[in-house]
């Protein structure tokens, strides 16, 4: 690594002295074709150049170009980019308003530039302007609602919350389905350091895309299909997100400085409004100040309670709560209603500040930026603070050499809150309305380790939690690369070009995590515990390519050969301490029991690849690629895999009969085929040191060493020595149409994926002695339909209005699993779980269903609903379709843009709704607190219609005790983003933009009480399994941007 850097440095020194070539000056004016008014701010640049100029207020420009440059490219945001020949005269360039981006060159796999109109597969790109970066720190959130075929599922609105991004459905049952991220040509790690496992305990763990500052992005190109990404080989089966960071845009003799800041406030997007009529208790007849539930008497009737009422007991109008007394307050109080949910949530706060300085000169292009993002979560004590710095330089040394580097450093610190079984939301939501959760002290006076809570302290008082416990994530990361490009003069003229490119980069980070639970967190954690763990990771990536292009009139040809090496070294550690000596210092040093572990892992992937492209008359484009990868993490005989792709684009509007017509301005049909694989994580079978901590235990009661001795046992998963890579075969067909002078644009893609030889941990019968076998089994088949339509409704120099829709329908079907395996678990409890089940779409929810008679009626026992003894399929998670809608308009200096999302269908398990129903805490439970009823259904014992009368409470609890009752439709429609921007006239040479925005504000959802975009887990179950998760947020804010 060091050597390579030295090599680049010496290149820079060596060639900086090479003389400039001869230049000439070209002048001209750029105007808007509609009214011939000048266009200030248009970019003029030689097509292969890296430097250009912008037009002044009169639309005029002057540029120095090399003598051999024959044409200039003129571009203006929102208008057709034109190439004009240099004639020697001042040029007059007329720009048309029409967003025809077809002539653009797009960056495809491995940095290859290709004409967009010739691509045989779908790509979608987002420019900086398309991203909703205000009021968020997350790239995933900035992209939401903008892409077809890309499913973005945020886990919550918490600072640093993970998002699951899946392109065209999953390919792996239980493995990685996230796309590969490539930043400035270098692949970087984007998945979370630790997955949250079955996601039933602990806090969410951020995914590493959090280290990408959305404000640094110039453009994102999403390579969705395998044909687009096949050149990236084994890592690319999930698609690739190619990110280009910002660099100097305009040729100028002084730097361009941009300072921007935006601030926003966050609220819970949908606050749980619980019932405020009935008090704490297990039944309406008696108040019970220790119960977890709200089935007690009416709050207004508390003073009449036989045991705790004050009426007739010397405390008229009051009731007694022993928890108040325990906390040092008067036990007697008058019934009151408290908004415990509203009290607990803060108003969150997000700040993003960016400073950027960039410049493009004739030879060099540099950009430097610093960013700070600061967030305070709606849950007290949660937040995030991210600092990042970035610099890049591209330097055209001479006609043959070009060198550059790009480096990103950032430090991300996140404090988060736990969900599910460790959740504090459970306590907040279930707190009885008459209990002053905020006001009653959290502990016994003088002893902070003795918690006071309305219910059993097997759960933690959320206010005590805020003061004492912590889930901390802290990452320091550097990623970047340096490159050199050499274009030897072949002496064959302009039609032949050969160049070599060598790029070396690193992605290096250390993440430290600390899960701190102070003394007295729960009964079973009376002594407290701390887990400090982390990962240190160093990925080195070297890419070498040789490229050749040739132009033979009607035919063009290009070829590329290359080699890539990726070496990944990581070390994972964990230090655990428990039973602190004393309260107030929850550190490893203060613990009295310790255990620790370390783990290191190396992986190497070596790939050799090539690509050939041939085009004819700008009408037919054929591309063939192949890549062979060698992967260390597979068994010895199955390390080498070859992946081919072929794609064809036919621009049929180039046919003479169609050429130049005004109705169909452009039409293309495209088709592609590709195969890409995914490697597994293979080891030889081994022994490990077991411990005891699952199931009913709230902690780990036994861990080795025990009495000074340790133990080894066979690992519970078995590895198949014949493991081979899984394979994804992909066919894709599509059409791109532009109508009415490009005002209406339609893109449609149909993709078919056939995934075979899935690698996954096949759950095995416990009686086999193992719980999993890591092997190839199962098939998954995905079809996806993606449609993008956009209409320029109004087009004028002074105003415009654009409407866009992107529609995605993905059917991700699990065709078969391993023999005899009906379904596999992705996450959840013993019951319910998120699973992959043969014959269902991926994934589905699996749990106890209602026992039903043949006619579908509930089969009742003693008059009450009951669940089945086995777990069953309770619904498919993935939605029927997802639609993103954008509507934007501009009038002179004022512009408005909105992004909407509409998701139809899909199911999730919502444990919070279900449990709060069971607890009698929801408003939905109100009709069931008193009285009796006869439940409609069939009596299982007699087979006759039920006639047994039961209490309404028993019915409601029995009903909401069966998982099927907790399955909800996730259909929703929401306004994701609304941004209003006003560009002030230049003030003293400074451009000022003022903007206001609102995110995630209007929500119509089938799910009651909560925002469906909040759930447990950062893996494949993410988005589908909810239980006391941290809630989603809405944000409102504004900002300023200065450019000078």
């Amino acid at each position, binding site marked *: 690594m060091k050597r390579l850097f030295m090599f680049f440095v010496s290149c820079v020194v060596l060639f900086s002295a090479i003389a400039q070539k001869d230049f000439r000056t070209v002048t001209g004016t750029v105007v808007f074709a509609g009214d011939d008014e000048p266009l200030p701010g248009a970019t003029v640049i030689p097509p292969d150049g890296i430097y250009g100029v912008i037009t002044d207020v009169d639309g005029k420009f002057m540029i120095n170009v090399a003598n051999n440059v024959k044409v200039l490219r003129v571009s203006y945001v929102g208008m057709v980019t034109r190439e004009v020949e240099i004639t020697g005269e001042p040029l007059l360039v007329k720009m048309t308003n029409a967003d025809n981006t077809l002539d653009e060159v797009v960056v495809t796999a491995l940095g290859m530039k290709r004409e967009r109109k010739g691509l045989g597969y779908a790509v979608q790109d987002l420019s900086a302007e398309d991203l909703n970066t205000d009021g968020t720190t997350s790239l995933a959130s900035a992209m939401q609602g903008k892409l077809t075929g890309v499913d973005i599922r945020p886990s919550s609105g918490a600072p640093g919350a993970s998002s699951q991004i899946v392109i065209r459905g999953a390919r792996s049952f239980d493995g990685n389905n996230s796309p590969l991220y490539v930043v400035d040509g270098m692949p970087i790690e984007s998945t979370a350091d630790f997955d949250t496992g079955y996601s039933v305990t602990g806090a969410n763990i951020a995914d590493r895309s959090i280290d990408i500052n959305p404000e640094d992005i110039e453009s994102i190109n999403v390579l969705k299909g395998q044909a687009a990404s096949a050149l990236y080989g084994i890592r690319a089966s999930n698609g690739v997100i190619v990110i280009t960071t910002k660099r100097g845009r305009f040729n100028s003799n002084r730097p361009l400085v941009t300072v921007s800041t935006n601030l926003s406030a966050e609220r819970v997007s949908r606050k749980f409004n619980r019932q405020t009529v009935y008090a704490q208790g297990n*039944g309406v007849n008696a108040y019970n100040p220790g*119960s977890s539930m709200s089935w007690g008497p009416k709050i207004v009737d508390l003073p009449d309670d036989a045991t705790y009422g004050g009426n007739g007991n010397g405390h008229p109008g009051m009731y007694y709560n022993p928890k108040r007394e325990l906390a040092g307050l008067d036990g007697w109080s008058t019934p009151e209603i408290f908004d415990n949910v509203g009290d607990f949530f803060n108003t969150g706060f997000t700040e993003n500040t960016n400073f950027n300085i960039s410049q493009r000169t004739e030879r060099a292009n540099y950009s430097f930026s610093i960013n700070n993002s600061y967030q305070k979560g709606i849950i007290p004590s949660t937040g995030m603070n991210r600092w990042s710095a970035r610099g890049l330089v591209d330097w055209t040394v001479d006609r043959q050499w070009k060198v550059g580097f790009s480096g990103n450093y950032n430090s991300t610190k996140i404090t988060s809150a736990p969900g599910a079984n460790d959740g504090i939301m459970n306590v907040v939501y279930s707190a009885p309305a008459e209990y002053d959760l905020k006001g009653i002290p959290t502990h016994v006076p003088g002893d902070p380790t003795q918690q006071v809570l309305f219910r*059993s302290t097997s759960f933690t008082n959320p206010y005590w939690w805020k003061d004492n416990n912590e889930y901390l994530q802290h990452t320091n990361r550097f990623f970047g690369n340096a490159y050199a490009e*050499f274009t030897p003069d072949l002496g064959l003229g302009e039609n032949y070009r050969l160049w070599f490119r060598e790029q070396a980069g690193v992605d290096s980070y250390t993440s430290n995590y600390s899960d701190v639970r102070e003394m007295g967190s729960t009964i079973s954690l009376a002594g407290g515990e701390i887990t400090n763990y982390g990962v240190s990771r160093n990925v080195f990536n*070297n890419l070498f390519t040789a490229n050749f292009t040739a132009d033979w009139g009607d035919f063009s040809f290009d070829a590329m050969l290359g*080699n890539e*090496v990726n070496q990944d070294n990581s070390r994972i550690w964990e230090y655990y301490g*428990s039973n602190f000596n004393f309260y107030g210092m929850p550190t490893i040093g203060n613990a*009295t029991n310790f255990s620790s572990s*370390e783990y*290191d892992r*190396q992986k*190497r992937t*070596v790939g050799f690849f090539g690509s050939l492209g041939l085009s004819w008359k700008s009408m037919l484009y054929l591309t063939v690629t192949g890549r062979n990868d*060698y*992967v*260390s993490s*597979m068994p010895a005989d199955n390390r080498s895999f070859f992946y081919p792709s072929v794609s064809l684009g036919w621009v049929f509007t180039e046919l003479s009969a169609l050429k130049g017509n005004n109705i169909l301005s452009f039409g293309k049909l495209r088709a592609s085929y590709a195969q890409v694989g995914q490697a597994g994580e293979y*080891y*030889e*079978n*081994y*022994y490990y040191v077991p411990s005891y901590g699952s*199931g*009913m235990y*709230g902690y780990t*009661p*036994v*861990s*080795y060493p*025990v*009495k*000074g*001795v*340790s*133990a*080894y*046992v*066979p690992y519970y998963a078995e590895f198949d020595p014949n493991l081979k890579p899984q394979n994804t075969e992909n066919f894709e067909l599509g059409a791109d149409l532009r109508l009415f002078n490009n005002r209406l644009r339609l893109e449609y893609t149909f993709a078919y994926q056939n995934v075979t030889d899935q690698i996954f941990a096949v759950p*095995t*019968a*416990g*009686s*086999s*002695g*193992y*719980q999993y076998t890591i092997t190839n089994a199962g098939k998954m088949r995905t079809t996806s339909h993606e449609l993008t339509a956009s209409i320029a409704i109004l087009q004028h120099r002074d105003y415009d209005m654009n409407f866009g829709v992107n529609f995605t329908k993905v059917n991700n079907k699990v065709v078969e699993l391993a023999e*005899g395996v*009906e*379904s596999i678990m992705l996450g959840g409890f013993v*019951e319910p779980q998120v699973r992959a089940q043969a014959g269902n779409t991926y994934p589905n929810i699996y749990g*106890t269903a209602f026992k*039903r008679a043949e006619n579908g009626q509930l089969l009742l*026992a003693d008059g009450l609903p*009951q669940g*089945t*003894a*086995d*777990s069953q399929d309770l619904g498919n998670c993935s939605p029927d379709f997802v639609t993103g809608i954008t509507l934007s308009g501009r009038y002179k200096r004022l512009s408005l843009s909105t992004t909407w999302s509409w998701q139809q269908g899909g199911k999730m398990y919502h444990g919070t709704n279900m449990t709060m129903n069971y607890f009698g805490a929801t408003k939905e439970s109100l009709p069931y607190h008193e009285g009796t009823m006869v439940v409609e259904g069939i009596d299982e014992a007699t087979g006759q219609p039920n006639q047994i009368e039961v209490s309404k409470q028993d019915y409601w609890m029995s009903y909401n*005790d069966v998982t099927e009752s907790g399955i909800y439709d996730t259909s929703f429609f929401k306004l994701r983003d609304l941004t209003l921007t006003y560009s002030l006239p230049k003030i003293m040479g400074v451009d000022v933009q003022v903007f206001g925005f609102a995110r995630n504000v209007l929500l119509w959802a089938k799910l009651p009480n909560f925002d469906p975009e909040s759930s447990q887990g950062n893996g494949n179950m993410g988005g589908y399994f909810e239980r006391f998760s941290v809630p989603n947020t809405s944000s409102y804010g504004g900002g300023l941007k200065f450019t000078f």
Partner: protein
Amino acid sequence: MLKKLLYIAVLGLAVTSCSEDVMNKINEDHNHPQPGAVNARFQVTDAVISTAYTTWGGAYAWYVSSYTEQTFGTGNNQLMKTELRQRTETAASTTYNNEWNGTYGNLMNIKQIIEKCQEGGLNAGQSDIEGIGQVLWVLCYELLTDVHGDIPYSEALVSKQPKLDKQEDIYKDLLKRITDAEAKLQAAADAGENNCGNQDVLYGGDPAKWLGLAYAVEARLQLNTTFRDNSAYAKAITAAEAAIAAGFAGADLSIFNGVDCDNSWAAYNWSRYYTGANGTVVDLFAERNDPRNDVYAVDEFDTGVAYANAGDEAMAKATETVGYPLWLDNGAAKLHIFSLSELHFILAEAKAKTGADATADFEAGIRASFDDYAEASTVDIDGVDAYIEALGAPTVKEIMVQKYLAQARDEQVQTYNDIRRYKAMGEEYITLKNSNNTGAGQNQWPLRLAYGNSDVVSNPNVAEAFGTGNDAGNYLFTENVWLFGGNR
């Protein structure tokens, strides 16, 4: 210039070295040992702990103790549903899944221990370790088949989808294996072998002590078969006496300290508070003026509720209300793999049933139980002599009641066997009082326990036996296991 590029290309290829050797080295796992490299004595440690902690002292016992009414299920969750005999909880294949998987996982470890002791293995010829492995094998499989009936056995730990074996056949093999273990351990003891040392956290590797346990286990197996084989009483006596002769003083796991290593019952209690004292036990204590009641039903929450009567709905739904035995707050309490009192009660019962004098064993059983209660509760319990005297000459009924009371400590799974065995024999010495045992016009008291979910989902043989949909698990309430009168 081109030369320089060639150098870069060569450098590139050098870095890219990807020969099999290099790749194999990169993929080496430095952090875990290979199976062949681990001496079996390191495996014995967890084989012992897991047998006690997961198999005999885990969820099987926690749930079953509600069925036997030796504890009361409370806390408004799983054990409340168990106490109320809600079928969804009782019959769900998920209920015992952790213990099912854990026990078979432990059996895989035990199997590899035994294999390593055979010819060609790392521990070839170490008959002490092989004998220990066989005893643990029998203990684990005994529980599985006792509570589940027919289970995967002959193909288990080999096939991915093992078939079910008949309980009758499994018991035959277990008896054969325990006899084999006795021989191995005898030989090891005679030869003064001790290959485990302190890796054996039960007996410090002493084969003589393991021999005592092997005979005790054999005695229990024989006792369990008495409904099917009346001559088994005599065989049980022979084995139990051999255990005593070998110096058997109980197989108690005493690794716990209550600080960073907790008894499973205490850990479970502190994690959940699902276990209360049961009125059925309290009544039996009261009838006998038994001092052990003072440590059994203790008002730990200061609610005035020291125990609850079996099936009490309000108390089952209450949280942190019902009192519980003192030892559930003692994380350092011993966990029984096989208590001394049980061995004495086996002898007493077998002798009483065969017309022999059971007095000495009856008394020894009670004394062992008093000691155990006192030690686990860290208090003194006086008056055992007077108590024994007041009981008079032992009857079969009183022997079974005393065994029931002794096993309320932490050996409820064996009580569950005894209750079912006597039901099969048409006798009843412990009257179960939970009114939820019948409900909705049918039996709600499980005659056996549900298979682990992993097999119900991934092993068609078990799935078929378990049933699906509305029928899933219904047989648990209608069909006894073979030992106790059923046929599967």
